[in-house]
């Protein structure tokens, strides 16, 4: 049902939300020794879910470790600038996907009301 209504945007929204959680994990662990920052390769996850995988599995299969620009001595690979940029980019993309879905819903409501 949601697949036919929202198309790719429903999956994209779910993946964006999962990616937001993962980047928040990185930000929360910015001071944890030995923590390795992770991120979702969004396009890989989206094409996996397009091929029919569930979004949870698609996201889990597209998780990659972040390659640090300059590794720190305690083994932590979180770089605040990278994480903040990724978080902002992801939030904007979430908002964009949300407005696509909202437009779709508005169209459908208008069609149903026969305006």
């Amino acid at each position, binding site marked *: 049902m949601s697949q036919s209504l929202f198309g790719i945007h429903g999956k994209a929204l779910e993946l964006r939300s999962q990616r937001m959680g*993962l980047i928040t994990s990185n930000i929360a662990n910015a*001071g944890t020794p030995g923590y390795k920052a992770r991120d979702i390769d969004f396009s890989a996850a989206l094409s996996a879910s397009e091929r029919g995988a569930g979004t949870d599995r698609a996201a889990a299969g597209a998780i990659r470790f972040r390659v640090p620009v300059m590794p720190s001595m305690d083994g932590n690979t979180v770089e605040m600038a990278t994480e*903040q940029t990724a978080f902002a980019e992801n939030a904007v993309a979430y908002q964009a996907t949300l407005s696509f879905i909202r437009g779709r819903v508005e169209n459908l*409501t208008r069609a149903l009301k026969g305006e």
Partner: protein
Amino acid sequence: MPRPIQQPLTLFGVAQRGMSAQLVRMNAASSNLANAGSVSSTEAGSYRPIRPVFTQQFDAASGLSTVNVSAVVRSNAAPVKEHSPNHPLADANGDIWTAPVDENAEMVEMLDASRQYQNLVEALSTAKQLMLETMRMK
């Protein structure tokens, strides 16, 4: 000390636990700062700086990981011995022991903890706003 995760961790849980961890770190740094320059009459009785140890807490159900304060350890830095026979706390040899607190390091620790706390608050408010917008969709 690790608090078990009852339900699957959400983004909000991650941020909340991270903020608590940074708060522990800030409290430790301010305890150290408050005891900077405190004097004792024995070497063993002198104040030693405390420092929290952070570990990653991974939640397999959601794939997210949060921070856990696994321990608060006392540093084994040696107190500074000073010869001051007129001090009321001086021992038989006229020595006193000052707490080995590095004020600059503690200030840096404090600043770093508050910046990371701010980052989490920022992430939390963005996420909250997006979730609310998703909820409001008609």
